[in-house]
């Protein structure tokens, strides 16, 4: 058996893979944040709450309506997305002309309220949510037993990231969107309904968070704090990747998952802090983030 840095190679490969799986969640969540920030200029602190809502909607669909995981994966993002539209129309749309700070405060307040209500209703230990039958069990990939469900998480997340990136960078809708962020009045002059477009973009970002929430439901306990645990890390990912950069958030999400995974082997106590150490270093060397354009 050969060794890597004093650890048996199979163990290291296993840890790299686990890091990648966590990275898949970071990538999906930071992608939604980047889309919203890039297009709306809103720092969406309620993102973790929408992630949690996605998981709870999936749980509720199964518990009360008998809707299975696969339909929940489609339905939960739509339901949470509609909720996002409501919030955007009633609250967030009032803030576009103001400083970033107002959006940050508003969405942070929304997150506290949503999470508080969920805690009040469901307590903190969480709800059980089973892995769908077809993805149960694990496969021996040589160096470790990889649960089938985790493999699916990486695949689903990678596909979702790719699709989002393609839509924004390669389609005409995406081009209009990007144009609208640069110069909204001009795009509006071409007869395009910019406010509606912005609302739908917000809904899309929120739906991405809910999608990640459904993916997470069978792995972590479905509990009201699940989003709060993720969101701070995800913000660090977005900052490291470069605020608003789609590609940056995807690459950094997966990359930092791996960095964190390795820290869990060498110095577990530091695994909660390592991403912030990276953030500090990146901000010192490249203040706009790894993939961000200097303002």
């Amino acid at each position, binding site marked *: 058996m050969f060794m890597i840095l004093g650890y*048996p190679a199979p*163990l290291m490969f*296993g*840890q790299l893979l*686990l*890091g990648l*799986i*966590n990275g898949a969640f970071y990538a999906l969540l930071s992608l939604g944040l980047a889309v919203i920030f890039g297009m709306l200029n809103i720092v969406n602190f309620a993102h973790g709450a929408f992630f949690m809502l996605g998981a709870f909607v999936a749980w509720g669909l199964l518990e009360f309506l008998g809707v299975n995981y696969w339909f929940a994966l489609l339905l939960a993002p739509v339901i949470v997305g509609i909720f996002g539209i409501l919030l955007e129309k009633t609250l967030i749309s009032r803030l576009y002309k103001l400083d970033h700070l107002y959006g940050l405060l508003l969405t942070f307040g929304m997150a506290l309220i949503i999470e*508080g209500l969920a*805690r009040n209703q469901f*307590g*903190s*230990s*969480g*709800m*059980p949510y089973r*892995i769908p039958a077809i993805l149960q*069990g*694990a496969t021996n990939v040589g160096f*470790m*037993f990889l*649960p089938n*469900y*985790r493999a699916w998480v990486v695949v689903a997340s990678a596909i979702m990231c790719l699709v989002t990136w393609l839509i924004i960078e390669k389609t005409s809708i995406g081009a209009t969107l990007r144009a609208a962020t640069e110069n909204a009045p001009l795009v509006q002059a071409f007869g395009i309904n910019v406010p509606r477009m912005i609302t739908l973009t917000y809904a899309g970002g929120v739906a991405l968070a809910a999608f990640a929430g459904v993916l997470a439901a069978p*792995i*972590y*306990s479905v*509990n009201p*704090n*699940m989003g709060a*645990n*993720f969101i701070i890390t995800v913000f660090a990912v977005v900052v490291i990747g470069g605020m608003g950069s789609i590609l940056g958030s995807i690459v950094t999400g997966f990359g930092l998952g791996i960095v964190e*995974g390795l820290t*869990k*082997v060498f110095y*577990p*106590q*530091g*695994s*909660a*802090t390592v991403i912030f150490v990276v953030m500090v270093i990146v901000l010192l060397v490249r203040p706009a983030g790894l993939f961000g354009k200097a303002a």
Partner: protein
Amino acid sequence: MKLSRRTLLGTAAAATLPATARAQAASIKIGVLTDLSGPYQDLAGTLAVASAQMAVDEFAAKGFKVEVISADHQNKPDVGASIARQWCDQGGVDLITEVANSGVSLAVAGVAKEKNKAYLPCGPATSDLTGTACTPNTIHWVYDTYMLARSTGGAMAKAGGDTWFFITADYAFGHALTRDTTGFIEAAGGKVLGGVKTPFPGTTDFSSYLVQAQASGAKVIGLANAGSDTVNCIKQAKEFGIKQKLGGLLVFLTDVHALGLDICQGLLLTESFYWDLNDGTRKFSERLKARAPSKRPTMVQAGTYSAVLHYLKTVNAMGAAEAKKDGVVTINHMKAMPTEDDCFGKGTIRTDGRKLHPSYLFEVKKPSESKYAWDYYKLIATTPADQAFRPLAEGNCPFIKA
């Protein structure tokens, strides 16, 4: 001096003033400091506050008023200590109780001692509360890491679990639990092969640690954590098909409820209270149902009831005004009186502040064995009160030696 009717009335009024002041001073205020928003909310939290209130309502104090207030310590020792300090300085609080989270509870123990108030921790686990960090103001009520280590750890070591790997929550509680369990493993001739310390709070993915534990080849993976950390560990161990035995060193009823019996079945765990243990515990749980219909109490919530009840009995015996004056005197009175309630039966309190009662080793039932809602445990073994906890001489409690 001419004595007019007016001055006479005035003097009479002035003379009654100290009397009213005394009557006001004789109202007792109980502060339930707990986790109302974090991972321990379900096992303590609002139901612990309700249990304290129920003790007050049932006792129906004669001759003095009792008020229960509560606050969220957010699992931060600094937040908990400053709430406790404010309660003592301005809030007129006489008793601080519950305080799930060992780190917070150690900080509050210092405040209670400094302000000379009564302190009855129910939720925290660390055995240091009656060991190196003991104070004459503290009675540690429900359970501690030594009790858990002896019962669950001892039983698993006896059943052939002689090599261990620990997944430890990186703060006072996890460290104490790992230390105490290691003592029992080594005494039984076993060995600890390794361990990881995981950041608390904020760790949700334990797969990396579980795979490390698997690679260590240890027969038992000791989970020195609690609440949603334990829930996530057990859930993910199942997902990764980990064959080693899981030593859930602190598992609460609410954790089993959250995981479901199909995942938890066969798990060994130790508690000092289970709602369906005997007639007393069932009666208590039935009464508490009026306050939270869909829930059953954990040992922490039952303990809060028991602790507050015994405190009120003591206050009644010594007089409220007397009890307010000096926390240490009140605590000494409590230690001198035997305890009795529906939750823990008859018990005593040792001089170092350790409340003594039996501990119970349970096994989680198979789904097919569970006949009704919350029917989760079957009793495997009982450790009598005089053996369940660390002997007085081994605790190194500073004020006992002095």
